[in-house]
Structures are given as C-alpha cells and as structure tokens.
C-alpha cells in the first residue's frame, strides 16, 4: 500500500468522524427527490423513462464507487473501507427501484415483464445482475460475515464483479446506437476490475 500523502491523511482523518449511516440517509433522500421530481416536474416530458434511467444510472455510479474503494486505498492511501457496505447496499436499493419503475410504471403488465425477461437479452442481463445482488444484500451484515467466515464471505462478494460487468453490458446494449456514456461506464468498470488482476511479478534485480 502506498504511504498516504499528508493531504490524504487529513482527508482520512475527516472521514473517520463521518458515520457510514449518513450514506443511507443521502441515498434515500436522493432516491426520494428523483421520484418527487418525476412526479411533479412538468418540464420532464417523459418522466417514466427519465426516472427509470436516473435510478439505473445511480446504480452504476454507486457500483463504480464501490469498486473504487479498494484501488483508492491501495494506490492512493485513501481509506473509504468503512463506507463500502453502505455503497454496496445502495447499489442494491437503486437497482431494485430501477426494476420496480420498469415493471410497474413502464411495462405495466406482469406477462409483458416476463416476456421481456425471457426474450430480450439486455433485460435478461439486467435481471441476472439484480438476482446476483440479492445474496450480496442479504449477507451484507456482520452476523452473516461471522457465520460464513471471512474467506467464504469474501469469495461470495466477488459476485460484485459479475454484477458490474452485467450492468455495464446492460447499459451499452439498450442504447439505440453506440452512445458514448454507456461506453464510458463500461471502460471505468473494466479499468477498476483490471486493477485487481494480480500484478506482474517485478523482474528479479
């Protein structure tokens, strides 16, 4: 691990006094604000599509933030480890909200929801990512960590990588052409995963 620069040490010091639950509060406020805007802002011509995308995008952004925790600590000495569980759980809640808006407000019919999941690959992929998130959310507490043991728990939570890849593909695939923004997220996620590959062994001196 890199030795933190003085500025990073200061930031780490500040972060120590921030309780992780503030992230849940901020996440809930943001989710509620997006919903309120979709329900009331007449300037949003297509509020259903807007809300669906806003929740989906927030999920991906939180996922990128979750994946950035370890590299930031390893390469910059910035310690955000205390916040990672909250970030990960917020991914789950935003994906759940995204899914509910899609099913209840957008598609509006259970049969059509099921048909889309079975027939449309980008929906299938999104659904798979959500299903993989469920065990992660369920075991994201200290009791599960103790019961499973650190090694098993860590292995299980590597599913996050699969979720990230599926989420990125889902976003690229639903665009009508090759839009720039989905490719940026795909690149970010690929980069953050590449940083986890075992480092090539330094040549013997």
């Amino acid at each position: 691990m890199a030795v933190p620069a003085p500025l990073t040490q200061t930031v780490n010091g500040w972060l120590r006094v921030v309780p992780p639950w503030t992230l849940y509060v901020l996440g809930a406020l943001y989710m509620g604000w997006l919903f309120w805007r979709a329900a009331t802002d007449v300037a949003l011509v297509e509020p259903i599509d807007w809300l669906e995308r806003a929740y989906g995008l927030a999920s991906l952004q939180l996922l990128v933030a979750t994946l950035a925790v370890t590299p930031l600590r390893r390469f910059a000495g910035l310690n955000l480890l205390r916040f990672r569980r909250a970030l990960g759980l917020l991914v789950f809640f935003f994906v759940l909200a995204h899914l509910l808006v899609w099913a209840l407000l957008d598609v509006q019919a259970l049969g059509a929801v099921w048909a889309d999941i079975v027939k449309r690959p980008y929906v299938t992929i999104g659904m798979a990512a959500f299903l993989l998130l469920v065990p992660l959310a369920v075991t994201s507490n200290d009791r599960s960590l103790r019961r499973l043991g650190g090694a098993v728990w860590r292995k299980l939570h590597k599913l996050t990588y699969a979720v990230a890849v599926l989420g990125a593909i889902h976003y690229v695939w639903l665009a009508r052409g090759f839009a720039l923004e989905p490719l940026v997220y795909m690149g970010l996620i690929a980069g953050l995963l590449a940083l986890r590959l075992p480092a090539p062994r330094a040549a013997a001196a």
Partner: protein
Amino acid sequence: GLGAAALAGPAVAQEDLEPNTLDQITSYNNFYEFGYDKEDPAAHADAMVIEPWSVKVDGLVDRPGDYALADLLDGLEVEERIYRLRCVEGWSMVIPWNGVELADVLAKVGVQEGARFVAFETTVQPEVMPGVQRGVLDFPYVEGLRLDEAQHPLTILATGLYGESLPKQNGAPIRLVVPWKYGFKSIKSIVRISLVEQQPPATWNLTNPSEYGFYSNVNPTVDHPRWSQATERRIGGGLFSSRQPTLMFNGYDEVAGLYEGMDLAENF
C-alpha cells in the same frame, strides 16, 4: 384542420387526437446530428443555419435543379394535418403539422417514367452539429420511400407546427412526415430529393438492418428485436400514465392497400 379526424380513420376516437403541447413537441426530440439525448436537439439546434435554404431536386425528374424553398412551395396549399407520431422506441405524440402534400411537390418537378423510389437527404453542418462532429451515425442522414408511398395523400412535407414556422429541433425549414411509419422515416431538414429507380439507402437501416427495415411501418405484431411494439406511451401523461395499444399502420388503415400481398414481417 382540413378533415384531420376524417383522415385518421373512423376507428380512432376524437380525443385521441388531442395534440401535445408545443413545449412537449419541441423539447423531446431525436435529431442525432445534435446528439443522442432527447434534450440535445432543443439545446443545440438553434445554431443551425436555415436561411437561405435550397433543396436540390435531381434524378428522374423533368425539372431538376436547386430550388429555393419558397419556389419549391410556391402555389401549393399549406394545410394543417393533425397526425399521431409513433417513435420506434415505443412512445408517441400527436402533432399539428402545417405542410404541403409531397405528391404536389413531386407533380411540380415532374416525375419521369421509370422512377420507383424517392430518396431524401438531411443537411450536414458539422460546425454546429455536435453529433456530426462525434460521428454518432454516418451522415448525411438519408431516407427513402417507394414512389406510391411518397405520393399517398397522407404524406406531407411539413414547414410548420401549430401555425408557426417549424422549430429547428423539429427539422426546420422543411421535413418529411409519413404518419403510418416510425418517426425516423420522417427525415428532417431536407436539402435533397432524388427520384430514383432502385431502393435508396436509409440511415437506420444501414446502421442496423436487423432492427430497422426499409419500410418501418408501424406494426404492433412485429416486435423490435429488443422491445415489444405492441403498446406505446403517449407523451404528456405523467409518471403514472398507462400504455395504450399500438395500432396497425399507426391507425392510418387507408394505406393498407399499398402493401397488399406483401409479408410485413419479412418487409418490416
């Protein structure tokens, strides 16, 4: 409006043709020259230069040439047509266009024997078009119709909206409107009209032939490979609006005869 309801066919209730607001029609657009997002055209189209404007008419016509817009429209009757617009993405609007029948323009330039299709081309102004700079599609945007589709009385060249000049994000100063086809067929900001013998290229069809056919008639029974086309959402209903069934030919049944004997799942 000149018999707009009558044009729509008896199956469609009158309240179904309540137009969207000018604000909705001008702030939620697909015009990829200005970017991918629905807000991009309204944000960037202002810089497009539309004066002077001329349309090159060429190919199998008696009177080819570069027509100043006013000359092309001279003597033709501008009518109001309240049409439903169904986007291939699954949303729809109702738009009160002002325009002339394409058939009248074609008659004016004189369609020659042997012409079977009409090809259209959109202006390219790279310096003011961020989407062109980024090359999000192969520009210029091109589209085409079979000659009988082009000459159908429902097919218009629109020059206005709500009785005013056409806003730039909606394809000023002159655009095609073919109400029974998905919106992307109705090419915007036209600078060239060519009468040709062979089926001309169409931008979305070139970009992804398995997803966008040359005909692209609105058809609830033929799904887009990535989403159903059975229903649509009318813009303007808010967060809790219901989907409504999509109608064959977007409700314009009178065009069915154009496709008699054709397999519309094959020729989608």
